């Protein structure tokens, strides 16, 4: 995983609530055995017309949002299935940051495993940021994870809370499994005790 660095980027607006993972990456694209190449299928059913051309009505097809790394969306983003193909598609498309009031739990976890910073803000804060993008499509925000801060040109910036463990992993780009395996002795000790307490699970 690449370390997450401070960056300036266009913020794209998706003013919809309950965007589910079936929309983020529809099921017909879940058959691949690789992790890469999902970006072109991101939001497929909304993004493309039946003939495969771009749907001009779809917000992310607006020229002003091309190249955006920040996605600003409504409540309960990423609800539904556990498919990690959703954050793979989001990252492969080019986003590394999502701003919303809330996320589904599994999706939220999956984001951080893939270098995506999912920022939680209050409804009031989200409304302000959304209004700023609506008024100035193509506006660029600065995301500074180290200082847990988002800066916007119109002064709607804010600080955000994030679990220190998740933050550390994003900043360093560290592999979770490697960190866990530092505790392998404790895992082994737990298993010895587990076998004594629940022998039927190991019979």
């Amino acid at each position, binding site marked *: 995983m690449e370390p997450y660095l401070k960056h300036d980027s266009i913020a794209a607006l998706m003013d*919809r*609530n*309950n965007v*589910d993972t*079936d*929309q983020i990456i*529809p*099921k*017909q694209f*879940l*058959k*691949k*055995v*690789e*992790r890469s190449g999902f970006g072109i299928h991101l939001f497929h*059913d909304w993004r493309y017309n039946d003939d495969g051309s771009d749907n001009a009505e779809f917000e992310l097809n607006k020229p002003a949002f091309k190249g955006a790394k920040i996605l600003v969306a*409504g*409540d*309960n983003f990423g*609800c*539904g*299935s*556990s*498919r*990690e193909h959703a*954050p793979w598609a989001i990252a492969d498309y080019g986003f590394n940051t999502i701003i919303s009031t*809330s*996320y*589904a*739990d*599994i999706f939220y*976890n*999956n984001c951080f*495993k*893939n270098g995506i910073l999912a920022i939680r803000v209050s409804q009031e804060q989200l409304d302000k940021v959304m209004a700023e993008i609506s008024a100035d499509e193509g506006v660029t925000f600065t995301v500074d994870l180290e200082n847990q801060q988002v800066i916007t040109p119109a002064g709607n910036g804010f600080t955000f809370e994030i*679990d*220190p*463990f998740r933050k550390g992993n994003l900043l360093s780009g560290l*592999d*979770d*499994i490697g*960190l*866990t*395996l530092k*505790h*392998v002795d*404790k*895992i082994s000790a*737990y*298993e010895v005790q*587990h076998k004594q307490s*629940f*022998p*039927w*699970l*190991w*019979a």
Partner: protein
Amino acid sequence: MKKTMYEKIWDSHLVVDEAGQAPLIYVDRHLMHEVTSPQAFEGLKLSGRKVRNPHSILATMDHCVPTKNRDLPIADPIAKKQIETMADNCRENGLNLYDMKNPNNGVIHVVVPEHGFVHPGMVVVCGDSHTATHGAFGALAFGIGTSEVEHVMATQTLPQKKSKTMQVVVNGSLSKYASAKDIALAITGKIGTAGGTGYVIEYTGSAIRELSMEGRMTLCNMAIEAGARAGLVAPDEKTFEYLKGREFAPAGQYWDQAVAYWKSLASDEGAEFDTTIVLEGADIAPQVSWGTSPEQVVGVDGVVPSPESFADEGKRKACEGALAYMGLTPNTKITDIPVDLVFIGSCTNGRIEDFRIAAEVAKGTKVAPGVTALAVPGSYHVKKQAEDEGLDKIFIEAGWEWRDPGCSMCLAMNGDELTKGQRSASTSNRNFEGRQGKGGRTHLVSPAMAAAAAAAGHFVDIRNL
């Protein structure tokens, strides 16, 4: 200190709990299917790691498998590769796989309980959000992403944040023809698809105690539709009776020891939950979803709501969008909505009890003209059991297709799907846009409601049959 069942399971599975990092919890059972595992195996291989505990894993093929003409090669080359990759990965790592031709094959969350692979008090994971199903046994069971699948294979643990606890009490008894599915939909309607986010739900109350194990599985299965990663039902005599004698259940000298432990798992009297929701069982009518989110539901005796009926702006907008997608007008009676296709199956409602109830309604009827009706058992064992009871004949005589097991139309990855504008009555769990096929319109219902809709060609209040 008085503890909830969730806290008891959590505490007994903590491996590491140190400041500055997420707690590590131990995983007892790891379930797998072909869609969310290949990238995890690839990652494991690339990093030179091994599966720590192969006997903790049970794998099946369910999402992409055809439900008819299984003897023919899979037509979709990408699906075929995914199926083959699953077989290779399981063989290379020495894992127990019920492949497409195996008599134990079926939908993972139907197969696993059939073999007694999950017990009360366990921590169970799977790269699938409907892992919540196994909470019916009093196991902490939740869906994970593919990176976490790799993590569990390599370490047998997961870094986890402790959840909050929500108690959902369903008092009294359900009315005739209301089912566990209707409880699940009514709860989602009440608290919304984000209502349970950050929580583990424990279902309590007499209406829950009265549910069969199949019913409890249906209920816990849909905990995720209310945003909760896991649902729990305290184990009782029904749980023990269900497990006894199954392949992976404790046997011989261990049975009594296991049952004694399982009995200790229920939430302590007076244990505190972070929040509590109460429903009256008798108030729960058979439910029908009208929109594109499982929270957009109403009783079958109701009408399609109008956007103006929602005070919240977000919900009003969501209603507008959903009605446009669903091709519905406000105030239409639910029983006036026609259906093109009926699907009974999935990890939510693909168990023997579901087919018994549906067959009772379907018996002596004919599928309405222009309607296609699919009965897709959740596993080969369900299929065989149903055939032994003659249920297949009831469906076939009524004009239904009787298929081989798989996820099928729940998420339409295997070729069974709706075409644009087609409308289904479906016993599955999600009515998201395009879930059953691009432009397809899904109404979530119970098996009895689905069977009645197939015969009538529109929704029916089964309480009046």
